[in-house]
């Protein structure tokens, strides 16, 4: 499903610029305007698809329960889900679970009471809450999004293992033998999967795993800052670094800068989570972009299938992230 965000990225402009071109709300430079229209054509973006499906008098509604605070992609996910739901004639009802299993349960029961047609749930952290049991017992059409907490439900999440392995392979392809990793908070599935991918990547390239090349960044900038420091202090420091999320990348970059280590000249860097400004940095960051819009679209699609066919077997879908090769890994791009 193509969104305005995809058009913007394709054209190399901001989303607001795309909106201005489409809706003629502001005069846009002719060259830019042409670029946007070209991008619309090339991506196959359809501006008015959504408009056709909203039926007057209908109350078809999908509930989306997720934590606003912990989800870095909150806005993108909501946006993608809203668009896809709208295409199908559903309105989106949004509720915040605050990453708290108790709140999550309350939210889920409230959505059920409002008779939503189906629920998309990004489960709260921690051991499996009772919300899932409730949903199962009530038979409410449900799809778990991003955090694949239970295979009893339809689930859609990101494929982390092979993606990380491919990233390691890419760095090895640049000639690196000492590839380090700053991994995230223990206990998170994504952390475990990315670590697994890292090891697999090393194995596939005939490289040995070395504990001195791995440090925990606890999924935040400050701990990552320290972790990178640790890695660089060793007798045989890494010549390339994989950082497992965006917050930790900030910390990593702070340390590199403070130590006067240049990227990619002294050390190659590849980071998880694309930022809209990753291409604005010097050097432009090579990132692993989460397929958020794709996840949102797929979640709605699976939910609609579940609504239409309540007895079908639950499926788990894992979508691959996109490797955005820029300059920090050593690729000399434009």
């Amino acid at each position, binding site marked *: 499903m193509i969104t305005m*965000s995809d058009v913007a990225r394709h054209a190399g402009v901001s989303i*607001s610029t795309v909106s201005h071109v489409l809706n003629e709300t502001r005069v846009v430079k002719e060259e830019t305007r042409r670029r946007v229209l070209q991008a619309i054509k090339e991506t196959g973006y359809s501006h008015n698809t959504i408009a056709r499906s909203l039926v007057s008098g209908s109350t078809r509604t999908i509930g989306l329960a997720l934590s606003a605070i912990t989800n870095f992609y909150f806005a*993108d996910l909501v946006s993608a889900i809203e668009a896809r739901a709208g295409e199908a004639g559903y*309105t989106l*009802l*949004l509720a915040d679970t605050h990453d708290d299993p108790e709140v999550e349960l309350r939210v889920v029961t409230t959505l059920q009471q*409002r008779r939503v047609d189906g629920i998309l749930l990004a489960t709260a952290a921690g051991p499996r809450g009772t919300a899932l049991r409730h949903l199962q017992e009530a038979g409410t059409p449900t799809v778990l999004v991003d955090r694949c907490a239970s295979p009893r439900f339809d689930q859609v999440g990101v494929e982390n293992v092979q993606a990380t392995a491919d990233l390691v392979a890419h760095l090895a392809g640049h000639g690196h033998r000492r590839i380090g990793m700053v991994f995230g908070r223990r206990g998170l599935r994504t952390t475990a999967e990315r670590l697994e991918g890292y090891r697999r990547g090393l194995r596939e390239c005939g490289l040995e795993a070395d504990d001195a090349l791995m440090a925990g960044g606890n999924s935040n900038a400050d701990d990552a800052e320290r972790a990178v420091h640790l890695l660089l202090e060793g007798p045989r420091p890494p010549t390339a670094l994989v950082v497992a999320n965006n917050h930790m990348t900030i910390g990593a*970059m702070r340390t590199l800068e403070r130590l006067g280590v240049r990227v990619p000249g002294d050390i190659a860097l590849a980071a998880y989570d694309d930022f809209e*400004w990753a291409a*604005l940095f010097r050097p432009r960051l090579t990132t692993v972009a989460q397929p958020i819009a794709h996840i949102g679209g797929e979640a709605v699609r699976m939910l609609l299938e579940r609504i239409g066919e309540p007895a079908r077997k639950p499926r788990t879908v894992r979508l691959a992230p996109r490797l955005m090769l820029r300059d920090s890994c050593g690729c000399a791009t434009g």
Partner: protein
Amino acid sequence: MSPRRVTLADVAKAAGVSRPTASLVLSGRGRELRISEDVAQRVLRAADELQYRPNIVSVGLRTGTSRTIGFVSDTVATSRLAGDMIKGALEAARDRGFMLFIGETEGDAELERLLLQAMHDRQVDGLILASMFTRTIKVPKSVKPMPTVLLNALPKQPAALPAVLPDEVEAGRVAARALLDAGHRDGIHLIGAGPRMRDVPPGSVAAVERLVGIREALGEADVKVAGGRICPDWQPEHGLAATRELLRTVRPRALICLNDRIAMGAYQALDDAGLKVPDDVSVVSFDDHPIASWIRPKLTTVALPHYELGRKAVDVLFTEIDGDPAASDRKGDVHRVPMPLRARESVAPPQDAARSGAGSS
């Protein structure tokens, strides 16, 4: 003295149905429970004519069902931070036991109309019409008048609708004062808009208001803006081009960039010209986009309080919902939310005029 509230019982009586029936119809469950279309229409008509508004608090308590408000915006995803507006709205709504229907119009008037209809069909108690970047909007003709609040937008035509906006004028003052407090008086250039009030990108409320504040604060200190360059859009490449152009003819002491993206471009132009921030040129900007704390030196910027804007919009909406819809002196109050200064590392006292400048063209 306020008129007696129209109750569910009144509606039921007028429609000639029982209270539970009326309640089911009005809560949108009529079809589900096979209440005839004819009966449903009678109830809706009666509710309409009597201007029935459900007593929100008691309904919530009685049925344990959450109430809802609609949040219709042009787009949610212009930046991660703009999502904070929805977060603020979500949490303020949650505090009162409300949930949010979300709709994105992508700026399309027809889609907006359909979404508003959809919200109405789902019996939201109020609406927030939000814009992800501050601007004037054409207020859509509502399906049915209902409590509505504009968020981050002002109506193009006069409308008796409350609006919640960031205090951009004060932000302009704050940005200017950050330079003044550091001792700057000369060589202050604007990038993105200015120097005259009419040098602003079309439709940008933020540009006009920030400019007003900047000129006021500088004027109070008897300081003149040395120059300004308007940018047709506020993106890094425009900031880069404008600053580069400026540097061809003059060496500024300080730049007021109209947003962080422009500042990013400006940083690059300064770097290319061999000028250091803040030693050679101080830079202050607006928004507190995540980029501001990433680039070096970290940007001193006046923050857009997205989260607080979202909260405030919902709070103002609840005031509207709880209030008396028939009051004839309804006016469109504008609620300004303060924009806090994030003082970081890009502003420093101006260097001595006698100090030799290195390498500027």
